[in-house]
């Protein structure tokens, strides 16, 4: 097959337009990538123009012609850090239009299983981070930083907004440069280009030291098992964990 490259603007709508163009032009791109990260190429390149009307048509057909479950899978799939994410999603949508609702159960298909796996990874990471987020208090407001592989904030929003309804808080994702911001009874996810936190005050330092003491003490020396700990709590989360960071 002749290599064919698609470039798009990186938005979800832009991706839906890639799907639209792929059908309209009767061709299958071998690679779809974001304009900003793309490298110079000798192969033919098609620049996809984001047209909200096209995007809407593709999106509504997901539910109408495949199923609500497939729509969810595509939405979540776009948040993952899957290798060749857009190409796999396009392939999945093509399969969906061909087989209908049963596509989400075709787990032995390499495309479907890759997507299921990636979405599983996303959900797992979001679930882990529900526990691994560490807030610090700055004058009554709470702030935390995370560095996830997947775009997990949309999956964490409902949990934290319901858990701390009367707090003002912020969770910043420094990989995808977006933040979940909340003040009593309103919240949302916003793109943020720069973010920095002030030094923790004495009171905050005190609670951190209390937590560290608890963490050190709760472990049973005779059962020490660093490998098990690292499996359960991978090292890439450690930099933001109060208890794993030296004072």
């Amino acid at each position, binding site marked *: 097959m002749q290599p064919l490259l698609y470039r798009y603007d990186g938005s979800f709508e832009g991706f839906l337009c890639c799907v639209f163009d792929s059908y309209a032009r009767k061709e299958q791109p071998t690679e779809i990538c974001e304009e900003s990260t793309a490298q110079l190429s000798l192969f033919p390149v098609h620049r996809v123009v984001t047209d909200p009307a096209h995007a809407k048509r593709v999106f509504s057909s997901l539910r109408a012609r495949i199923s609500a479950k497939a729509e969810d899978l595509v939405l979540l799939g776009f948040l993952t850090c899957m290798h060749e994410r857009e190409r796999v999603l396009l392939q999945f949508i093509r399969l969906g239009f061909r087989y209908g609702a*049963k*596509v989400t*159960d*075709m*787990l*032995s298909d*390499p495309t479907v*299983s890759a997507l299921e796996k990636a979405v599983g990874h996303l959900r797992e990471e979001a*679930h*882990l981070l*529900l*526990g*691994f*987020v*560490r*807030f*610090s*208090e700055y004058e009554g407001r*709470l702030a*935390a930083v995370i560095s996830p592989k997947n775009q997990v904030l949309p999956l964490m929003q409902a*949990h934290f*907004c*319901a*858990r*701390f*309804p*009367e*707090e003002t808080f912020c969770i910043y994702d420094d990989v995808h440069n977006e933040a979940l911001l909340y003040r*009593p*009874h309103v919240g949302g996810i916003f793109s943020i280009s720069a973010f920095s936190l002030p030094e923790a005050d004495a009171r905050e330092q005190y*609670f951190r*030291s*209390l*937590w560290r*003491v*608890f*963490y050190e*003490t*709760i*472990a*049973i*020396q*005779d*059962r*020490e*098992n*660093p*490998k*098990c*700990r690292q*499996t*359960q*709590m991978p090292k890439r989360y450690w930099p933001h*964990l*109060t*208890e794993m960071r030296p004072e």
Partner: protein
Amino acid sequence: MTTLEKLKILTDAAKYDVACTSSGVDRAGKAGALGSSAACGICHSFSADGRCISLLKVLFTNRCICDCQYCLNRRSNDMPRAAFTPRELADLTIAFYRRNYIEGLFLSSGILRNADYTCEMLLETLRILRREYHFRGYIHVKAIPGADEQLLARLGLLADRMSVNIEMPSEKSLQKLCPEKTRQSVLHPMGWIAERIAQNTHELAKYRHAPAFVPAGQSTQMIVGATPESDFQILRLAQGLYQNYGLKRVFYSAYIPVSDSALLPPLGSKPPLQREHRLYQADWLMRFYGFQAQELLDEAHPNLHPQLDPKCCWALRHPEFFPVELERADPHTLLRVPGIGPKSMRAILRARRAGSLRLEALPKLGVVCKRAQYFITCSGRRPKDLVLTPEAMWRALLPAPKKGAAPLPGQLCWEDFMPRMSGGNHAAASLPL
């Protein structure tokens, strides 16, 4: 004494309690309140021993009037003692909770003065959390044995989970090691809690807003390896607790020597971690896979195999059950195949609805083929190149010994099979099949 010092002493005293789960109750957040609970439970950290930290696990006090031999806090043990005040502990819980360090509180206590007084202290702590802070996070509280039922009833209305530790797997061991306790004094509150939960379920069905009594159920824990009970006895006891008392969890805790009592394993001996691991595996088989204790073990084989997991052992002892045809088997049968768990079972059901199953696709469904391959057929096909004699299967399923390591006691090696080949029969007899 500062809060920091108290926290250190009272955490240290509580760390041998195993339970740290925050699961079993779904409670959404609410405007004007603080916190929520998720039925799946959320782990917030993992300590250096690899155990999950979900709750702030502390004792209210480690002063105690009892003298149980296996317990770190027995009154004859010379160690620093401390006690929180209810307000102090509630404030600490909220400060940790707001920073997302924890999912809630796990509160146990030594017996201060008497059971009722201790129970009132716990009650006051929980009251401050629930009524003053409007805390909706998870609370696990230990039922204080011997406390007044009225007090326990009030405690149960504030907590999510309540537990009474059965500690020793048999009456005899309990009497030997805890002269103050009897089997009855442990089982009585457990039965009482079970009764209250049943009654509350009834009330909740009638009146939607009836206050919930320990909505996440009760759990217990027993110490393994301090006394001579076999795994079979332990599992049968656990099964009885699940069936008769409706327990949500039984925790097993490998005994770590904390006492120089002559009645117990000597200080410095290693905790039986592998045995504890196998017991948990068997426990899971009973709770999620539909196994009975009597199927996994019997009088002739009273202990779980150290090198091979209990499900594989069961499968090897029941060749008549296999092979299982994955295209047609019902969910319960699928769950009995080694290498297939609830998740991969559901994946198989979904995948075979969408089309025919192929052996090559099984790893994608989460089936562990390394174990499953000996026990399945797929559209009538069996994996190729497998030797399906019991001996070969045993050998293939046992973990490979580390290079250069001496074979573990009881581990089969090639020599075990040699005499059989030269006509002898005693090697086969030694197989624990």
